[in-house]
């Protein structure tokens, strides 16, 4: 299933699963960039806020010599039938037609969490607690991203703050507003092994235009028709099949993430 409905001037992220070492630098860089607060003492892996979340997936008995892999899971920025957009009762989620980025307006969100139920990738996070930083640490917040408050949903937006800054600087240099600008989300910048690549297929930054067509490229749950803008790469067949549910998964599989 390689139906690419993504306009080449819209952003895509390509994550090389074979290069991910599960170090978590992307998760930390993302939280710092987007002013996500440290965990409340009672938070768990099911109540935390991790726009980027790396999970470890075991092959069960299918692995071809590779027993497990790490999959970083940001919002998949679905291009078609974006599940969270249609369900929101008050238009707090919108898709930017130019960039393709699915944007959550936390200021308008009432926290009904219907979008979270709708998202098959579990990429959305609810603020179960008020965000709290240790005393003084709020001075180190990124001025380009507004902090959210308790009771609203938030998620990865391909570092929208960085996009805005890049767009502003491109405008200063006289670039037309319809041209895609080059920028890089925090996770891609932080990745020690350069497993995360980002850009538009049209400009082919970091080779993303070629990578999305490579034979090892795949996307999560393609049959749902959501056309994610996040692609993964792996040379391991079991990883590709598992992600696309092409084969019945064995029950010996477990996950930590």
């Amino acid at each position, binding site marked *: 299933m390689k139906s690419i409905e993504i306009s080449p001037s819209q952003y895509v992220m390509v994550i090389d699963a074979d290069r991910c070492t599960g170090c978590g630098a992307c998760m*930390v860089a993302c939280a710092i960039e987007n002013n996500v607060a440290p965990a409340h003492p009672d938070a768990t*892996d099911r109540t*935390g806020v*991790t726009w980027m979340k790396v999970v470890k997936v075991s092959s069960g008995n299918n692995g071809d010599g590779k027993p*497990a892999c790490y999959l970083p899971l940001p919002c998949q920025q679905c291009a078609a039938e974006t599940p969270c957009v249609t369900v929101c009762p008050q238009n707090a989620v919108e898709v930017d037609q130019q960039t393709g980025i699915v944007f959550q307006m936390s*200021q308008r969100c009432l926290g009904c969490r219907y979008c979270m139920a709708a998202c098959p990738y579990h990429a959305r996070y609810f603020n179960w607690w008020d965000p709290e930083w*240790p005393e003084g640490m*709020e001075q180190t917040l990124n001025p380009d991203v507004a902090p959210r408050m308790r009771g609203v949903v938030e998620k990865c937006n391909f570092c929208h703050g960085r996009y805005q800054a890049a767009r502003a600087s491109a405008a200063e240099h006289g670039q037309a507003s319809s041209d895609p600008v080059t920028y890089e989300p925090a996770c891609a910048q932080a990745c020690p092994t350069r497993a995360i690549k980002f850009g538009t297929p049209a400009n082919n930054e970091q080779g993303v235009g070629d990578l999305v067509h490579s034979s090892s490229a795949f996307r999560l749950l393609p049959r749902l028709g959501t056309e994610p803008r996040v692609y993964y790469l792996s040379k391991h067949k079991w990883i590709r099949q598992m992600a696309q549910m092409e084969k019945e998964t064995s029950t010996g599989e477990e996950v930590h*993430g």
Partner: protein
Amino acid sequence: MSSALSRRNILKLAGGSALGFLLSPMPWKMLDDISIWTQNWSWIPKLRRGPVTHKYTSCTLCPNACRVNARMISETPVSLWGAPDPCVGHSYLCSVGLAGHHLAYHPSRVRNAHRFTATENGISSEQLSVEDAIAHIAKILHNIHVRPEEGEFALFDCRPHGMVSDIQQIFLSHVLGARYIVPDHHEGRFMRALMEMTEDPGQSYGLDFSRTRTLLSFGVSLFEGWGISPLVVEQFRSRREEFNIIQIDHHQSSSSIVADTHIAIKPGTEMALALGLAHVIVGERLYDPASAARAVDLKRNKPFSFMDLTRRFPPGRVASVTGIPEDVIVRTAREFASNRPATAIADDFAPAELIHSVWILNHLVGATGKNGSVVQKRPLPQPWKGAHRTPPTRLRNVPDHSLRLLMIDASAADTTVSWPDLRRKMRAENATIVLCSPYRPKRGESVDYLIPIHAPYETVRANPSGEYVATSAFQISTPLWSKSEEGCETWQILQRVVSASGAMTKEEFAQLEPEELLRLQCDAIFNSKRGTIHHPNNDETIPLGSVLSSGDFYATLMEGAAWSDDGVATSTNGRLFLMGKSTSSAQRFAESVLAFDNAGIDSNPSFPLLVVPVGEDVAARFGHVSPILSKIYQESDLKPRSRFAYLHHETARRFKLAAEQRVIIHSPHGATEAIVRCDSSVRPDTVQLSVSQLDAISPTRPRIINSYGGRVYTDQPIFVRIERARS
């Protein structure tokens, strides 16, 4: 005006008011206000505005000295990123380093000196000025001077590294009988073990993986944690296809997942595998002839010689000891010896005999002294060449109950100190522990005085490169905050204590500021006339010779530039000592191998499961890292958790246990509780436990933790049995 007020009038008034109200701005303003309120609660922090600038510095959290590009808003860092580092080649920061600028605001940060006294209700603390605290400590030191029989004075350096450790040793040499204590294991131990096996003393070595084709890792955290990791990541990133990684690991670590081959091994039998590989390499004559010629031991076969020891580890036997199939052992040996350059590495915290065996493998395949493997390097030029220094003592060699006054330098973020061990070295009565740290003592650390020191990035710090890099390098970690808070460095506190006690005699050390210290180091490097300077601002490299003065050199380093030494053309022909240079070390190695050979590791039928110890979230939760690391250690399930016992499905079935069941784990030494989790990556007949669970069931302390890499070593294997907990 006497018309009666009819009901109709009232209704009209009410209706009109309602309509008027709707048409007035009030309700709409209210709606608007509500939406603004809900977006701007007073407790949501306000964002700082101001011009964006960038500042280059370097990270002091671990000895790797990664270079940092700090994004600053109004003179305050808002994020840290890796900057290009020509010395190592990489330009990234690890997850801990990315949040390094948070450490000044760590919740357990202290700004004042404290005195702690034990009371009936626990420990009470009292604030005092740093001057008073130093005066108190100097008085104790003076008493020790007068009455040496009351016990010794010592400084415990959690991370002996570079010139700061150097100057501490110089200060201590002014105090009669003072000790300079270092941890039993610390960074660079693996590299330093090589000195015992090569001819010229005082020679330093580094690792150069730029041409390495096979990397054989004995349980090293290759992709996270500190030490070798940046060197490996750089090769993995830039030449993934030619860089073949074989990871020998007792559990499914992130390194073993990412490696090309993971060889699962029974914990505690790694040395047997290394000697087994050596057996195959020697038996099949796969070794490097030139290197073998340097290692004359290879020809002899007398008792306790290298040949005698490896003879005892044929693949068949090693297979049964390690649980690795015989053909895998043979295949691995062949791959390692033929796909050269090849390098084998072990952890700094691994048992000494394992480190020794791993070096034997390197010698056999000719890795030592070759480009693309283990290279010689010149040490960093040092100031005060002739100064008298107190020699280091390992913690385990300090006599028990001998210390009256102990100062601890905890400026390194991750320390591997075992607190009970430290306590045991103190006199039973009247002993004083002084902690020099930016943070409150952790749970279980009983100190008498706490003197605050600078957190990372609050002051200038000398930042020499780590032990592993191929060439020496030097940078300055410049402060990110222009107005530094109160506080000073441990060596300055030591200096003041020693001066106040009347012991300091040399004028030149009596009033030394951090900047002066750095200038001295810069002078020493400048005078060597070696090396190059890399400036991250324009990514340019210039020879040191083109810099006019030492002052210019210092100023350039303060801007975030790095100095690195010229590479040394290596191909050493000196002798190699497979068993160790001194008779005593050869004997120690032979004895531990033979002891293993005789006893092996055997399970007791009543304790059938072998414990695989792993690190977990405890370090991140209680260690001094940014609270944002909760994303990894608390808000995701990426790392093994401390309250779980991980078992293979079949093991669980055999012992009639189910996932999420509460169990008690018994060892001959105690018991602990856990919750069962099934994981197909865990070897049958083993149980994977995290280090915090080992306290109750392990016979010995300390367990050495490389917390960020998830590495734990126990002195001896632990066998347990698991029973269901009664609810």
